[in-house]
């Protein structure tokens, strides 16, 4: 991992009206690094990664993305800056968001053709290569609705990759999937990580985060409560809030009604 930070957030804050979505979020993503953001729902994880490619504006702090400096609460970035960030940062959504009226291959080639002006034959060739990589080349002519959730998400990954991005953002890419379809999507993301793609992902898959991520960031109650090397944060969290969160996630069956995990010796008696 080189030391060049491609995303650098400094005390980034986002509010909807008076409601705080997240506050003082500071984190760096370096080239070829995989950063996983985990944490309870409503902590602001998804909204934060949407700020990176400016699907949402933010209210305070600064966010540097691929050399562009975005300032919270300031004037919106110029069209050119926005365009540059979005063509170089790919994004995969929780709900896939494929274009339902376009076939799989047309979903993938739309942006390369329209934004990068790549001629159709070359765009198609590249799309087919990407589809082959995720094992879906035989579905190229189908409409997205005909595909399973896992297949749709793999196509969505291809669609983002077709722009040849330098950074990939994943917003809970497996949380809408049936459990048996999660594996195939994680496999595609894992392969990307191995190829050295820089990634920032929001996920609920702890095991996956531990295996794939270099850095884990835990967000809770609108703040970052802990960040560091994946294994350290997940195995031996330093802060109380992170410990509580991880216990609830890893041992959901042992959480009582007020959300506490019963100590092991007590559990034996219950």
């Amino acid at each position, binding site marked *: 991992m080189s030391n060049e930070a491609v995303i650098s957030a400094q005390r980034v804050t986002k509010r909807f009206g008076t409601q705080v979505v997240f506050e003082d979020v500071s984190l760096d993503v370096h080239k070829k690094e995989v950063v996983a953001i985990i944490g309870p729902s409503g902590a602001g994880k998804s909204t934060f990664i949407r700020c990176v490619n400016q699907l949402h504006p933010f209210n305070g702090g600064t966010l540097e993305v691929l050399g562009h400096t975005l300032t919270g609460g300031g004037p919106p970035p110029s069209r050119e800056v926005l365009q540059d960030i979005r063509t170089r*940062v790919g994004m995969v959504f929780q709900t896939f968001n494929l274009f339902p*009226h376009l076939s799989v291959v047309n979903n993938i080639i739309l942006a390369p053709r329209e934004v990068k002006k790549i001629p159709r034959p070359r765009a198609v060739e590249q799309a087919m290569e990407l589809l082959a990589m995720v094992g879906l080349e035989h579905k190229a002519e189908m409409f997205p609705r005909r595909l399973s959730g896992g297949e749709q998400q793999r196509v969505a990954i291809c669609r983002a990759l077709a722009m040849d991005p330098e950074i990939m953002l994943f917003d809970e890419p497996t949380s809408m999937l049936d459990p048996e379809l999660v594996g195939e999507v994680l496999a595609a993301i894992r392969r990307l990580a191995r190829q050295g793609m820089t990634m920032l992902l929001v996920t609920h898959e702890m095991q996956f985060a531990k295996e794939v991520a270099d850095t884990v960031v835990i967000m809770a109650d609108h703040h970052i409560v802990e960040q560091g090397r994946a294994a350290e944060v997940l195995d031996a969290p330093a802060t109380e809030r992170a410990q509580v969160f991880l216990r609830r996630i890893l041992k959901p069956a042992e959480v009582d009604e007020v959300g506490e995990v019963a100590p092991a010796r007590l559990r034996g008696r219950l």
Partner: protein
Amino acid sequence: MHIPILNIPLLYSGAIAQGAIKDLMVTIISTILSFILGTLGATARLYGPKLVKTVVYWYVEIIRGLPAILQLFIIYYGFTQWGIDFSPLTAALIWLVAYGTGYGVEIFRSGIIDVPQGQWEAASALGLSRTMTMFRIIVPQAYVAMLPPLTSFVVLQLKNTTLLYLVAYSDIMYQARLGTDATEQPGILYLMAALAYLIMSLAIGRLGYRLERRAAAYR
């Protein structure tokens, strides 16, 4: 003069058919124009600058709020006071397009806001411009969502053409009326007019269903 009732269809079916063609013609032309203007109007109403939004809003309210005949009479008779003299065909087309656009804006607007926000986000995240997103992603999906109300609307426009006989546009209604005056047999003549309208509106309905079925390929 008394003509046997069975001779009426023979005598007048030509005139009714001519009227039908004229009705169909203004319906098709005005539908196409209101379709284009309605899409632009709906886009302007949703995403345009404040002034444009207000103008479109009031346009829709006026078209929706004034009785159809009054609108038509303002165009055909009202304007003559200031020396603007439209032919029946011009007045007919101006009114049908103006009226169609007013309703078209609302139909398209509901179609556009039906498209999930995630489609905008996905397109933005890929670097597609707003205009590109609108015309490549949002509008095609909006068209499918609004096919059923659009079909009803085209049938409504066809029926609106009956009003045109009031400005001497020689449509079905006008021909049936002429025949009635000549033969004093309104029953059979209006029945023929009804049949002509029914055939045309059934055809429009069928076309609508066919389009819906084709669109269903991806829904």
